[in-house]
């Protein structure tokens, strides 16, 4: 099986290399047979990489300890589910998984070639070029099918922190987000290479960009949830370099998704959009570089990998070539830009782009500053949560404010009078929220402002839905609920976007609430004793032990009372994984919309029978997860096929490339 796997990867590399040559020659000399051959080569590449993945999965499931990867990341007692997820639990496997996703997406793009026959061959050549790098690594630098010299009796087991269901879906989601960003990047590069500078590349890849954003959102969300449930510190985001590396492409992709609307409507910002998609892709590579280089210490790193120089070279090569290509085309990309007013949706989108890219830059700067400091001063410093919190806090407020302004301000221009009329409701709602919060006893100015702005942003979405639904009620005499549903169905891109805004505002409320008002109690108690945490009384009932061939566990039974009434029984535990001889924490969480009760079994004294609990009461954190899932739901609505939009894309692509067209307005494109 390992031989088949490695052979398949070698064949995939050959196929990818051939496809580039065939695509470029086929496009330049207009030879359809060559283009067809290139596509077949890419499908063969995807098939070969799939064989490689299946070979590794088979080896993992069959406990083939003769394979170094299997011996390093599994054990005989590891549950089957985690043997499957071990594919992305280690260096070589995760790189293979990444390449697999890239090959599948490339195959899909080849399949969709008729959507844009001019750009697709070039985009496929770019995607094949990226695949070649990863296949080169898998064939010559970090081989997943290397054998061990002496077969061990058992494997070293998967890192206990990775033996969690969130970890099973967090890396695939994030990788899907990262890798799918390469499709719009490839089409952007194709546009630069071919000189076809209209927005057809954006239209052809809009769904890919939203798809990428969807998975980046889920990837970040699942990662945060994993940290919350597994790391046992009551938090979910520590501004670790690898977390930052996942967050930055999300921010820039968000900016891109807003900015392309201006190009679609007004044929402006061509250079900026191409720069943004280039940034997104380079940031995904930067994330991979950070994880695999060890240049910045992170809890997520594969620091012993030694892949850093390869990734750094690739990252620099891609960034420099793309920048040079873009600069060479700047003059041709310039269009006669016009804007009527500072009080317009275009202007709001520009400032929204500034804030999003500004936050991404602040995160990038903070992540790299320790390296810079060491290089300049020779002093190692840490840039941790206090820095990121302080720098990003004002920018986040600006972002939420602009998120509220965007949906209601008109395209082209607005008057102060119309603005005052439109925003009166949301502003009133925001002010009421802030004043109520102040009366309720909140004294943190940041939290007060944040809650007010979130309410303002929610108010604008409410007004926008209400306006649209009222119009439908009057025009086609629909019931209110039917009007809202039809509003979304007929204009999914626009109203799906507003649902995403609701998710962002709620997630923001969750982040602020959980960051500012978290309380922590640490108590050492004996069985039968009770202690108070906020409005709850926790009674420690007793301790139970369990043992399986894979791990030993101790669980405390804690009854939770509120107002004298029992509301839950929680079971926090301590786990001890036998094979790696490593302890882990199993936290117990009772989640409600108002607050989470988060109980950690911090210590057990076997001699005295005393047990130490660390308990966090975290307000509003529920809304972070709820907001995240609302964002995902809104994105699904945005991605849902829309017949009118497809017709517009087809019309745009059919238009001759050399003629400067009037921008085609896609229905519901706000």
């Amino acid at each position, binding site marked *: 099986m390992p031989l088949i796997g490695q052979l398949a990867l070698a064949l995939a590399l050959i196929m990818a290399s051939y496809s580039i040559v065939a695509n470029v020659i086929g496009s330049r000399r207009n030879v359809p047979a060559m283009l067809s051959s290139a596509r077949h080569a890419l499908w063969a590449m995807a098939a070969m990489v799939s064989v490689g993945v299946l070979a590794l999965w088979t080896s993992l499931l069959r406990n083939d300890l003769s394979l170094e990867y299997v011996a390093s990341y599994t054990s005989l007692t590891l549950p089957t589910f985690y043997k499957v997820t071990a594919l992305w639990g280690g260096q070589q496997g995760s790189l293979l998984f990444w390449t697999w996703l890239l090959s599948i997406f490339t195959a899909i793009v080849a399949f969709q070639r008729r959507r844009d026959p001019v750009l697709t061959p070039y985009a496929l050549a770019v995607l094949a070029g990226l695949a070649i790098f990863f296949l080169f690594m898998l064939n010559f630098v970090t081989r997943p099918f290397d054998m061990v010299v002496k077969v061990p009796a058992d494997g070293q087991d998967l890192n206990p922190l990775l033996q969690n269901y969130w970890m099973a879906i967090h890396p695939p989601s994030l990788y899907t987000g990262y890798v799918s960003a390469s499709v719009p990047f490839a089409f952007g590069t194709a546009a630069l290479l071919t000189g076809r500078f209209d927005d057809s590349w954006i239209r052809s890849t809009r769904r890919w960009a939203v798809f990428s954003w969807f998975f980046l959102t889920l990837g970040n969300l699942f990662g945060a949830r994993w940290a919350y449930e597994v790391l046992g510190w009551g938090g979910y985001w520590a501004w670790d370099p690898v977390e930052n590396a996942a967050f930055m492409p999300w921010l820039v992709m968000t900016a891109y998704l807003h900015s392309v609307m201006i190009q679609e409507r007004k044929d402006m910002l061509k250079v900026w959009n191409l720069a943004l998609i280039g940034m997104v892709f380079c940031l995904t590579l930067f994330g991979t570089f950070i994880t695999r280089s060890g240049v910045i210490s992170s809890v997520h790193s594969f620091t012993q990998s030694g892949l850093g120089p390869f990734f750094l070279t690739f990252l620099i090569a891609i960034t420099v070539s793309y920048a040079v290509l873009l600069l060479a085309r700047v003059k041709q990309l310039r269009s006669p830009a016009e804007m009527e007013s500072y009080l317009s949706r275009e202007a709001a989108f520009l400032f929204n782009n500034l804030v999003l890219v500004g936050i991404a830059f602040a995160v990038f700067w903070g992540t790299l500053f320790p390296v810079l400091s060491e290089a300049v001063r020779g002093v190692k410093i840490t*840039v941790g949560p206090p820095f990121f919190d302080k720098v990003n806090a004002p920018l986040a407020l600006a972002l939420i404010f602009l998120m509220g302004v965007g949906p209601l301000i008109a395209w082209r221009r607005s008057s102060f009078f119309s603005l005052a009329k439109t925003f009166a409701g949301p502003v009133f709602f925001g002010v009421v929220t802030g004043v109520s919060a102040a009366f309720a006893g909140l004294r943190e100015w940041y939290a007060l402002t944040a*809650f007010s702005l979130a309410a303002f942003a929610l108010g604008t979405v409410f007004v926008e839905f209400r306006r649209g639904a009222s119009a439908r009620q009057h025009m086609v005499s629909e019931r209110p609920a039917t009007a809202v549903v039809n509003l979304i169905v007929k204009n999914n891109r626009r109203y799906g976007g507003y649902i995403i805004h609701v998710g962002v505002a709620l997630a923001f409320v969750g982040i602020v609430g959980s960051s500012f008002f978290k309380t922590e109690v640490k108590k050492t108690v004996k069985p039968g004793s009770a202690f108070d945490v906020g409005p709850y009384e926790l009674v420690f009932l007793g301790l139970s032990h369990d043992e399986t061939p894979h791990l030993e566990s101790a669980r405390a039974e804690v009854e939770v009372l509120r107002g004298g009434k029992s509301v839950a029984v929680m079971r926090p535990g301590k786990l001890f994984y036998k094979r790696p001889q490593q302890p882990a924490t199993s936290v117990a969480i009772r989640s409600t919309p108002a607050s989470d009760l988060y109980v950690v079994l911090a210590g057990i004294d076997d001699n005295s029978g005393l047990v130490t609990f660390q308990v966090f009461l975290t307000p509003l954190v529920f809304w972070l997860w709820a907001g995240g899932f609302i964002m995902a739901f809104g994105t699904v609505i945005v991605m849902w096929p829309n017949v009118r939009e497809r017709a517009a894309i087809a019309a745009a692509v059919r238009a001759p490339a050399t003629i400067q067209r009037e921008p085609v307005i896609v229905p519901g494109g706000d």
Partner: protein
Amino acid sequence: VAFKYLRSLVAAGIAMMFIIMAVATFAASRTSVEEVSEGLTCQCGCGLTVANCNHPQCEFSVPVRQQIETMISRGMGRTEIISFFRARYGEKILSAPTTQGFNLLAWIIPFAAVFAGCLLIVGAIFRWRANQFIEEQTFESGLAPDDPVLRHHLEQEIRE
């Protein structure tokens, strides 16, 4: 309609007020130990601050937190305590760069970049508004654009 609209907003406002009151019930100011320990990075390798270290029996963060508690009980302030740990472990123990010398750049650059971006956008919109104005003027005065070919076509069409 306005009344209905106002009524729904007030209802939503009241709902929000209740949620916030629920939050306020739980709200409490952070303890001084937490405030100080958030300024220090744990040296056990967890990558978190001393306040957030996730190793319950951590050999670094647990004694440091106890030491901070003792220092606070002796009347020492946040700055004084953090200076003490900085002198003992070096700058790497601080969880954020200082605001002096080269480190000041860490704080200034992000805001300077956003400010520069802001100026750039304001300038760009100003220029684009001027383009719009010129186009409107051209349109309104009936003048053809400066392109001689277009002018020729236009004059020919007017003659015809």
